[in-house]
């Protein structure tokens, strides 16, 4: 029963790490996009070759 706690913690840490990193990337993307679109007056996606 004690072992199950380590297993649950391990799986939770994995999923939280992945979700937190994805969320952090979304924040960075939003911040950079806002700066670029404010400066240029044009919306941007960050897609390769388009901006």
């Amino acid at each position, binding site marked *: 029963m*004690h*072992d*199950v706690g*380590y*297993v649950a*913690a*391990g*799986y939770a*840490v*994995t*999923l939280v*790490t*992945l979700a937190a*990193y*994805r969320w952090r*990337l979304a924040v*960075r*993307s939003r*911040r*950079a*996009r806002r*700066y*670029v679109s404010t*400066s*240029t*007056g044009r919306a*941007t*996606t*960050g*897609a*390769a*070759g388009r*901006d």
Partner: protein
Amino acid sequence: MRYVYRALTLLGGYRAQRVMGAATLVGLAATVAIGLFVVPPDASQGDVQRLMYVHVPAAWVAYLSFGVVFVASIAYLKTGRVQWDRVASSSAEIGVSFTTLTIVLGSLWGRPVWGTWWTWDPRLTTTAVLLLIYVGYLSLRKVADNPIRRARWSAVVGVVGFIDVPIVHMSVVWWRSLHQQATVLRPGEPTIAGSMLATLMLAFVAFSLAYGYLMAVRMRVGRLEDRSSLPVSELSTPRARRPRPVESPIDGAVGGVIDGALDGAVAKASPRHA
């Protein structure tokens, strides 16, 4: 190299990104469900062995990430194209996350099995060194004062730092270690039961998809951040009319406007600076 980068660009498209994101979610959900509830527990370790289905794939993605850093760094040093620097830095960031995750998961597994959260075992120590190398790589990127120098220095670290990856993998063979031997990436047949191996393979696929997805998103963020670091006057200039980046042949100092991140070309030396 051009085709490899083109393939990476296609993977970075919105539609490809969404498909990869959905596939990652399905893969991770299946890994969690099967790893926790379907596959039988280990005969000697019991339920705690289920951590293998996240610990080993996390280590695999860390190796993969640093392998990509290595290849992209060589490509940057060879071609001078800033896109390769962006591939390397994106992959290093993801690799550091997965190496940290590997160490934390190993610690959670080690406590009930070895009776300790951490020991200076060769595998653990070389993995900690690997983490420090790539944390150093990311720190170096923060301190370098111009983009071309930053890209060149970090490419050198990206190539040299990769030496530790085979050392980490072979540490359990070369030195006496508390850590178990490799069960899959080893000469001969894998040493685990079929259902466990199948679950582990599923986890490898799911984690590799997660890597691909995070790479695609991180590359897009990198392009945006490179744009947002430009002066406002340059942002409103069409890409074709922007000055090419110029590096002084004297001390590597940059003259003109640094814009390699956008047009993908780094001028070697300019007659204006000769």
